């Protein structure tokens, strides 16, 4: 028997190999302050958005550490790829909380994943700060630990819908991707248009899809032809939509405007769509260049220098998310989880994109811990190869650089 067991050790080694991480050592007191970042870095998640967020956060971390860290301690962020899968998100959250012993969690791009993560954050009493997750439900659950710097769908797409109505569009087509982001946003817009009695049609697209021509042809042949197409698409499918709508002569044209989401702020829009991207309207949740503070200017410069591409709104949001969390730690005077949660409710932090605070109002439900003054602009590319910060601002009025929509 003894003999045979010795022979079995080989097989057990396989299992033991997998169990190695079980034995990792607990953190020491004067170790760096640990924070956890969550977001999609691989499919089926929106990995290009996640990558930009991760870069922006690391830039911020390096800045803080170079300046001496927080409370005299260095800052260390563990990045967890959640692949856009809720189970990955909840496992990542538990891992960050229990294994990496993080003081707070932030990030995320997908609402469905965020909804799984906040359950764990709530369970363990760890602050969770959403960077670019728009579903109302996230803050509507009113967990004390859950905050959000990004807009809620109701906050932005109500505005976007209102703007289209103000512009006098009479017949609006909504094209939404079949993700939490797209379906959530589309519903808000549709409801708002419904409430204002504006005709609209909804079309949902699959992100893997590459040929949208039949759907666009259908829109073209609608009578009357839509005078605006609002895309609620984050993934790369949006580039295809723009290109194909343009090649068909559907939009953007004098007859039909094309309004897109922030994915179109990435420079790839010019590589893929070329001239077709001219006259595109884009919903942007970042401040216009004219409003940039020194922080924003410095961030944009540093980001562009380091990653050889201009940051989009998502990067600014991610950078500010880290800033908010760091500020809360400073204010709390410790990396204690509960203290951070408390500090976040009292914070007033000037970031690159806005000055953040998190109200405790409970009505409407989603407003709880929701940053309300999200900068919201609608911009229009007026030249080829334009960066978003150079583009014309058509909304809101106080920031507008033009009062005329092209063409």
């Amino acid at each position: 028997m003894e003999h045979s067991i010795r022979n079995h050790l080989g097989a057990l080694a396989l299992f033991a190999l997998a169990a190695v991480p079980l034995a990792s050592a607990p953190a020491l007191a004067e170790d760096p302050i640990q924070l956890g970042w969550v977001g999609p870095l691989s499919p089926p998640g929106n990995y290009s958005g996640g990558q930009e967020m991760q870069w922006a956060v690391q830039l911020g971390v390096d800045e803080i550490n170079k300046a001496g860290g927080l409370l005299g301690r260095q800052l260390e962020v563990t990045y967890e790829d959640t692949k856009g899968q809720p189970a990955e998100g909840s496992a990542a959250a538990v891992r960050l909380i229990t294994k990496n012993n993080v003081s707070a969690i932030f990030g995320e791009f997908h609402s469905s994943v965020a909804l799984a993560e906040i359950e764990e954050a709530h369970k363990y009493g760890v602050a969770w700060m959403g960077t670019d997750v728009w579903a109302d439900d996230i803050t509507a659950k009113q967990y004390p630990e859950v905050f959000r710097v990004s807009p809620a769908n109701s906050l932005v797409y109500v505005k976007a819908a209102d703007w289209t109505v103000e512009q006098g569009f009479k017949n609006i087509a909504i094209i939404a991707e079949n993700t939490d982001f797209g379906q959530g946003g589309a519903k808000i817009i549709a409801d708002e248009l419904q409430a204002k009695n504006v005709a609209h049609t909804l079309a949902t697209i699959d992100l893997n899809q590459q040929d949208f021509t039949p759907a666009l042809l259908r829109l073209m042949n609608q009578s009357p032809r839509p005078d605006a197409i609002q895309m609620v698409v984050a993934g790369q499918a949006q580039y295809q939509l723009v290109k194909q709508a343009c090649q068909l002569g559907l939009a953007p044209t004098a007859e039909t405007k094309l309004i897109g989401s922030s994915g179109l702020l990435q420079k790839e829009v010019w590589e893929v769509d070329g001239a077709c991207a001219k006259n595109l309207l884009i919903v942007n949740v970042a401040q216009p260049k004219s409003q940039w503070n020194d922080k924003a200017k410095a961030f944009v410069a540093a980001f562009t220098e380091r990653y050889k591409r201009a940051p989009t709104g998502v990067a600014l949001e991610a950078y500010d998310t880290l800033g908010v969390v760091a500020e809360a730690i400073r204010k709390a005077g410790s990396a204690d989880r509960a203290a951070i949660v408390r500090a976040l409710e009292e914070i007033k932090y000037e970031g690159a994109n806005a000055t953040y605070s998190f109200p405790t109002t409970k009505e409407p439900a989603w407003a709880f811990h929701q940053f309300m003054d999200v900068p919201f602009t609608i911009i229009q590319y007026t030249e080829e190869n334009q960066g978003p910060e150079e583009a014309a601002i058509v909304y809101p009025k106080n920031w507008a650089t033009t009062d005329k929509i092209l063409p």
Partner: protein
Amino acid sequence: MSYFLLLAVNGLVVGLIYALVASGLTLVFSVLKVVNFGHGSLYMLGGYASYYLISGLGLPPLLGVVGAMVTLFVFGVVFERLVIAPMYTDKVERKDEYAIIVTFGLTILITNLALVVFGPFAKSPPSFMTGALIAGPLILPYDRLIAAVAAVVLLVGLSLFLKRTALGQALDAVSQSRESAAVIGIDPKRMYTVAFGLGSALAGGAGALIAPVFALSPSMGDLPAVQAFIIIVLGGMGSVGGSVAGGVLLGLVQALGVGYLPDPNRALAYTQAFGALLLVITLLVRPTGLFGRPHLRLE
């Protein structure tokens, strides 16, 4: 009527492009009797290969396509020799499963590798020709037109190659019957290697041709692969002509389905389901495919 025509022409053009994607899969199946579940990743590799050849070496776009095909041919030959070839020996018992697993493993390997190597942001090689052909109610972007014409050229070329050249006839002989091919002095194993290399080259060529039409991303091959599966089933597995018919049928069904189904939202959401449903029904009702020659696998 012009609406119908618009949809139909668009469906036809896209269908030809689909057929091109499927042609390599067809060739591999007809000779090796293997469904290459890694086809989509080879297609993706072809797209990137041409992108880097064009942007890195400064090749003209069409030469980039040729370069991509050569690259993928070599890749296919090496993969076949190293991984697929053992299948023909007695060591491998479950041959069908073996082939599915190794080619599917190839997809997992390459798709994730692409993400690491090529990065997450979309890339797009330059257009073959910008703008669109406008004739009456018809609007056809030139890139699509060129891809469709190239598809026809490649498919006709493939058929002629199989019928007219010695190598092609040898491939065709092996696809009809390994045993009889061996009897007349053709080494089936060499033909398997050639077929897999050519199949990979065709996948790569398709990816390269379509790259300017759609953009490049590491997951760009997922959907075309599924569409290619649908097409080879529709067309009767292993028949080039059948694949063309299958591709066009799929293109038309999708275009007209999206164009005419009553609920526009659902019509679009189910675009891919149309094709999958077509596959399911074909396998149930007419397992030999709609257009192809009957195959032996079914008892």
